[in-house]
């Protein structure tokens, strides 16, 4: 797998632009197609196989897969690791923590962020450009810089190892992203609709609630999902700011993987459970997610 990848980039670049179907180069074109198919297959295997392998680890006994020649026996298929984890309170507790923290973070970020983003997209005011730049600049600040002070502050206020403390921290990191994404979505709505509503006698709040928000609903959904995924997947901040009480799922999942721990069945199962909500949301909203992710970059 390692060796095929560098070739992938090189060969596809050369084969990049499609040639028109002209007589005489058909054979060559077929050759290009074969190369393209092969590379494509290799790339897809590369991206999917590791995940499928972990999936197998979660439903097959480890000794089937850890032999000299791994043996995938469908007759051995079992969900007992899932059953064990999903009935174990020391696993369910972090799971509930993760869900509560991620949902709360998403709601707060969306409430504050979409309102702010609407104003930034629609109104011209002094400090607008610096505000946008500041939101972007927050992304350059590594979490470790804030983690230490936040750790000390949360401890001082008795919020260390609480869900509230974690939500506050996530809001700090995710709110700027939400504002940034939502400004893009609001800017895509023609301002003439606002004007029309204004002429019809709507005040600013009515325009925001009845016109702008409904029109931006796909953007709101995409941004919410993005905020949820970011909060749900975080490990670094949760590792630092929580202990037994408010431990989240990624932290719990990582704990299955001690330096010498070899319970790969549990680790893989916990991994699949942690991934599943993100994967489902991503698949449901794939169009919007791709748009939301690539928007900023493609526009500039």
């Amino acid at each position, binding site marked *: 797998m390692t060796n095929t990848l560098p070739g992938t*980039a090189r060969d596809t670049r050369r084969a990049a632009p499609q040639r028109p179907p002209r007589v005489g180069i058909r054979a060559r074109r077929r050759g290009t197609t074969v190369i*393209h198919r092969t590379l494509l297959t290799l790339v897809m295997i590369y991206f999917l196989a590791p995940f499928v392998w972990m999936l197998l680890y979660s439903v097959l006994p480890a000794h089937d*897969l850890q032999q*000299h020649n791994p043996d995938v026996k469908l007759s051995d298929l079992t969900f007992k690791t899932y059953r064990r984890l999903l009935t174990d309170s020391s696993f369910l507790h972090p799971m509930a923590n993760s869900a509560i923290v991620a949902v709360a973070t998403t709601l707060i970020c969306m409430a504050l962020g979409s309102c702010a983003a609407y104003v930034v997209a629609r109104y011209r005011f002094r400090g607008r450009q610096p505000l946008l730049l500041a939101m972007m600049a927050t992304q350059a600040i590594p979490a470790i810089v804030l983690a230490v002070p936040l750790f000390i502050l949360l401890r001082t206020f008795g919020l260390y190892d609480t869900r509230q403390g974690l939500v506050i921290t996530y809001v700090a990191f995710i709110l700027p992203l939400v504002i940034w994404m939502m400004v893009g979505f609001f800017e895509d709505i023609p301002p003439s609709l606002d004007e029309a509503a204004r002429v019809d006698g709507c005040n600013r709040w009515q325009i925001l609630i009845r016109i702008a928000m409904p029109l931006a609903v796909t953007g709101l959904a995409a941004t919410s999902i993005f905020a949820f995924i970011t909060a749900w997947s975080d490990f670094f901040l949760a590792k630092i700011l929580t202990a037994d009480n408010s431990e989240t799922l990624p932290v719990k999942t990582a704990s299955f993987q001690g330096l010498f*721990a070899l319970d790969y069945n549990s*680790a893989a199962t*916990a991994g699949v459970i942690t991934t599943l909500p993100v994967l489902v949301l991503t698949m449901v909203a794939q169009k919007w997610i791709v748009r939301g992710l690539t928007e900023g*970059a493609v526009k500039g």
Partner: protein
Amino acid sequence: MVTITSPGPATARRVRSARERADRRFSVALVLPAVVAVAVLFAYPLGYAVYLSLHRWNDKISPQHPYTGVHNYTDLARDPDFHAALTRTAYFSVITVLVGVGLALGIAILLSQQFRGRGIARVLLLVPWAVPPVVNGIMWHVIFDGSTGILNALLRGAGLISKNKQWLGTPHAAMNSLIFAEMWKLLPFLALLLIAALQGVPRDLYEAARVDGANAWKQFQHITVPNIRGALMFALIVQTMWSIKVFDTIYVLTGGSGGPAGGTTTINFFAYLTNFSYLDRGYGAAIAVVIMLLVIATTIFWLLLLGRPGRWRRKARGA
């Protein structure tokens, strides 16, 4: 603080100023909560981090926190562990950024061709993106395992190795395994970014180039690259930031140690260990501040190298 120029046509001055005032009230009411939240949650801890870095603050040694000026920073400049971590970060970042963006461009071009199932292929690309970093670490730990991992089994089966290799066993092997694992997770995002950019390149440019007799490489060089320059720059900047900040995968792949023998301890991991294993908050804060400066410096480096700043948004819309 906030002054509004109303977007609508203004007739009488008096009406306009009343409307302006209402606009102002409205914008302040909506923007202020978010701005205050970010300012408090970001600016305050940021200032506090700088403050910490100027003090001796070690929870293991003493409850006293005397002011020491730039002492932590001068210590850092002489610390061989920090230098080693910096070198590892440079190695990790250069490879993940350059090879990562290069491969992503290849994958993006591959997935931009016309073929049946293209939509599905692009959706499946989101699978690695959706896998949380911690899970990515677990996944590769299972694969890399020196005695039971599938990687050794596959390579043995293909006759490429005769006996099992310890992929996470030596500092150098562990670093390269880490890069390999991290690549799996970062490539899809970069590829999706570049696919979106490639879609914006006008097809007729390629037609014209073909008429002029330009070969595929020339077309790539003179049409593809210049037209997706913005996205390429964005990809380089974002990936550089992430590479410098890498943490989760290291933690899981090495059981929280950054080993073996510190072989995967990049600066971010070094800062983590200093802060939360050695409880040296002052020194740890200094490392964190240096990481931040490094991220900013590399971003400026890319901006100066590849384009002008300040034209991030709306350029491609022609606005």
